[in-house]
C-alpha cells in the first residue's frame, strides 16, 4: 500500500491539500517536547512528562473506545498493573529498567489477555461493568497485599533507571536525572504512539472500526469479532501498562489510589475531551486537562467541580471533543455560519439555549481562562472574542425574536437596560443588594426572550424551525 486509504466515513481534519495538512505537526510537537528541559523550567518539564504519559494512556484507551467501540470503565487496571510490575521489579528485586519495562508490558499483556477473554464475551454495558469489576479487583489486591504492593502505604521511592549511558552523550551530560528520564520517556512514548498509529491505520485497525460500526455485519463477512476485540484489548492494555510503568518512576512511587475506579473516568474524560474520533484527539485532551488543572487549582480548590462542568458542556455541546470542534470551526459548515452570522430566519427556544448559550458559555469560559493567563496576547484575544461574541449573540437574539413573530429591532430593548445600568454603575458606588438587583435586571431580558414561545407554523420571518417541530417527540 503506497497511500493510506481513508474510507469516506472517517473524518480527517485538513484533509485534501490545505496548508495545515502539509505541516508535519507530529514532528514539530516531538521536537518541541524534546527541547522542554532546556527552554522550560523544572516545573514545565514535570508538566510535559505528565502530559506525555497521560497522552499515551488516553490513546491506548481510545483504541478500545473510539476505534473498536468498547466502553472500558476499568482501563486504569492495566495502567496500575504496569506501574506495579515495573515498580516491584525495580525496587524490590533491583532489576534494571531495561528488564523491568518490557516485563511490565508483558505482565500487563498477560493480565489483559486473561481478563479480556472474559470481558469481550459480554455486550455493551455488561462489558463496561466487568472491566470495572476487574479494575476494582486490582485495586483491592493493591490496597491489601502489603507484602508485595505495600498496601495502603504503596511503594514509595522507586529508583530512577541507570542513565549513565545518556550522560556520555554530548549535551545531555549536564542534565539532571529527572530531565534525562524525561527524554527517555518521550522517546518511549513517541515510539509507542507511532506503533499505535500504525496499528489503527493498518488493515487490522480497519477491521476494528468495522466491528465498532456494525458487529453483526463484521461477523457476517467472516470476521471473528471476539478474537479481534480481544486482540485490541490486549494491545490497549499493554500500552496502558507501559504508560503506568513510566508513571510509577516519574512520580517516584506507586500507590493504590492510582488504580481506583475514578481514575478510569478521568482518562476517559481526557479521551472524549480531545475527541475520540481522531487519533490525536486523546493527546490534545491530556494536554488540555493537565494544563487546565494546573491553571484552575491556582484559583480554586474546586477542580472536580470545574471538570464536571466542562464534562457536561462537552457532552451536550461538543460531543466531538476539542479536535472535533476545531475541525468544525476550520471547515465551518454553511448552516453554522448562517446560524451565527445571518440575521434572516428563526431560532427556536431549544436552539437558543442548547445551541447558543451552552456552547458559547463553555467557549467563553475557556477563552477567559486562556486570556487571563497569557498577558498581552490574552488581552488581544479577549477583545477580538468579545466583538465576535457580541455580533453572534445579537444575531441569535434577533432570530429568537423573529421566532415568536416579534420585530428584530426589539433587540435594542434587550440591550438598553444593560447599557443604562452599566453607565449608571460607572457613576456610582452601590451596595451589594442593589448591585445584585441591577444584575438581575440586566440579565432578565435575555431570559425573557429565551422563553418566548415559538409561533407555531410559518410566520413572516420564515418556516418553523425543523427541530422545534420534531424534537418534542
Amino acid at each position: 500500500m503506497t497511500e493510506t486509504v481513508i474510507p469516506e466515513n472517517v473524518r480527517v481534519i485538513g484533509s485534501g491539500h490545505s496548508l495545515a495538512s502539509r505541516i508535519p505537526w507530529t514532528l514539530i510537537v516531538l521536537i518541541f517536547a524534546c527541547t522542554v528541559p532546556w527552554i522550560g523550567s523544572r516545573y514545565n518539564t514535570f508538566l510535559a512528562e505528565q502530559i506525555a504519559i497521560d497522552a499515551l494512556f488516553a490513546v491506548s484507551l481510545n483504541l478500545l473506545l473510539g476505534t473498536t467501540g468498547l466502553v472500558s470503565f476499568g482501563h486504569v487496571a492495566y495502567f496500575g498493573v504496569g506501574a506495579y510490575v515495573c515498580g516491584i521489579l525495580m525496587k524490590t528485586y533491583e532489576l534494571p529498567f531495561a528488564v523491568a519495562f518490557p516485563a511490565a508490558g508483558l505482565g500487563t499483556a498477560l493480565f489483559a489477555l486473561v481478563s479480556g477473554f472474559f470481558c469481550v464475551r459480554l455486550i455493551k454495558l455488561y462489558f463496561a461493568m466487568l472491566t470495572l469489576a476487574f479494575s476494582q479487583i486490582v485495586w483491592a489486591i493493591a490496597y491489601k497485599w502489603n507484602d508485595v504492593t505495600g498496601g495502603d502505604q504503596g511503594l514509595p521511592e522507586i529508583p530512577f533507571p541507570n542513565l549513565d549511558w545518556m550522560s556520555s552523550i554530548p549535551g545531555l551530560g549536564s542534565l539532571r536525572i529527572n530531565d534525562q528520564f524525561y527524554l527517555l520517556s518521550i522517546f518511549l512514548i513517541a515510539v509507542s504512539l507511532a506503533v499505535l498509529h500504525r496499528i489503527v491505520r493498518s488493515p487490522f485497525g480497519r477491521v476494528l472500526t468495522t466491528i465498532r460500526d456494525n458487529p453483526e455485519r463484521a461477523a457476517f463477512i467472516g470476521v471473528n469479532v471476539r478474537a479481534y476485540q480481544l486482540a485490541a484489548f490486549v494491545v490497549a492494555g499493554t500500552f496502558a501498562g507501559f504508560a503506568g510503568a513510566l508513571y510509577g518512576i516519574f512520580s517516584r512511587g506507586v500507590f493504590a489510589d492510582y488504580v481506583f475506579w475514578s481514575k478510569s473516568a478521568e482518562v476517559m474524560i481526557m479521551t472524549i475531551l480531545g475527541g475520540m474520533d481522531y487519533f490525536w484527539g486523546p493527546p490534545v485532551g491530556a494536554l488540555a486537562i493537565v494544563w487546565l488543572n494546573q491553571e484552575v487549582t491556582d484559583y480554586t480548590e474546586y477542580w472536580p467541580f470545574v471538570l464536571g462542568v466542562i464534562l457536561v458542556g462537552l457532552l451536550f455541546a461538543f460531543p466531538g471533543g476539542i479536535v472535533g470542534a476545531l475541525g468544525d470551526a476550520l471547515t465551518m459548515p454553511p448552516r453554522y455560519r448562517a446560524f451565527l452570522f445571518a440575521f434572516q430566519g428563526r431560532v427556536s427556544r431549544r436552539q437558543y439555549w442548547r445551541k447558543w448559550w451552552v456552547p458559547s458559555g463553555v467557549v467563553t469560559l475557556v477563552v477567559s481562562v486562556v486570556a487571563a493567563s497569557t498577558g498581552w496576547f490574552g488581552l488581544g484575544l479577549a477583545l477580538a472574542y468579545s466583538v465576535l461574541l457580541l455580533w453572534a449573540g445579537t444575531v441569535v437574539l434577533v432570530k429568537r425574536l423573529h421566532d415568536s413573530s416579534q420585530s428584530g429591532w426589539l433587540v435594542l430593548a434587550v440591550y438598553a437596560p444593560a447599557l443604562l445600568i452599566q453607565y449608571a454603575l460607572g457613576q456610582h458606588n452601590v451596595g451589594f443588594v442593589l448591585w445584585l438587583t441591577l444584575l438581575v435586571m440586566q440579565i432578565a431580558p435575555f431570559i425573557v426572550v429565551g422563553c418566548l414561545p415559538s409561533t407555531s407554523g410559518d410566520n413572516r420571518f420564515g418556516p418553523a424551525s425543523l427541530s422545534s417541530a420534531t424534537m418534542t417527540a
Partner: protein
Amino acid sequence: MAPSFLFGQFMGGLTTAMFLFLIASGLSLVFGIMRVINFAHGSFYMIGAYLAWQIVHWVHPGGVGFWVAAIGAASGVALMGAVIERLFFRSLYGREELYQLLFTYALVLILGDAAKFLWGTQQLSVSTPAVLAGSVQIFGSTQPLYNLFIMAIGPAIAFGGWLVLNRSGVGRMVRAAQMDREMLDSLGANVGTIYTGMFVFSSFLAGLSGALVTPIQSIVPGMDVLIIVQAFIVVVIGGMGSFWGTFWGSVIYGEVLSFGILIFPGFSLFSVFALMAVILIVRPWGLFGRPL
C-alpha cells in the same frame, strides 16, 4: 467460635446488607427502566445525608427532628433528581451509553464539590432518635435497636416495591416501559412522565437512605464514591432491575463481607469484587435478573 459470636457476625452482615439494599434498590430501579448506571446515585445519597444533618440542625436535635429530617432530606433529593432528569438526562436517552455514564460521573464531580462547598470537609454526625437509642440482647449478642429498625425497613421497602411493580396499574406501566419503550410510547402512554417518576422515586430512596445512615455513620466527603461501588456490586450480583434480586444481592454482599473478614482477614474486599466478576462472567444479568 461461639454461636453468639457467629450470630453477632451474621447480624452485622445483615445490617450492612439492609443499608445497602436501601441505596441499591434505587440504583437498580433506574437501571432496570432506563438502562443507565447512575454513578451519581451515591452522590444523591451523600446529599441526603448532608440535608438530614442540616434539617436536624435547624429543627431541634432529638425528638421528632430526626424523622422530619429524614423525610425532608429524601424529598429534597427527590426534587433535585426531578430537576436533573428534566433538564439534562432527558436529552441523553437516545445517545450512546458512554455519554450517559459520563454525564452521571460529571454529576458525581459537581455534587461532591458542591457538598464540600456548602458543608465543609469536617465530619458531621446526627444522634440516634431517642425512641431507638437503646439496644437489646438477642442470643447473647447485643443489637442496637436502630439496626433492627433498619433491618425491618429494608424488607418492607422491597416488599412494597414488589407489590407496586407487580400488583398495580402504575407498576404495569413501569414494567411495560422496561420491556419496550417505543411500543408503550406509540400506545399513547406518557413514557417521559414514567421515566421522570422513576428517577424521582429512585432519588427519593437515595436521599432517604442517606438520611437514615447518619445516626450510625459520620457524614464525610467521599462517602459518595465509596458507597456507589458497593451498591453497584450488590446490583450486579442480584440482577439489575430486579427488586428481590437486589434484596438477596445485598444479603449475599453483607454476609460475604462479614464472614470473609473471619476467613481471609484483609481480603474480604477482594472476595466481594471477585464474586461480582464471577457473576458477571457466568450470568451477566445477575442471579435474579433477566437477560437484556
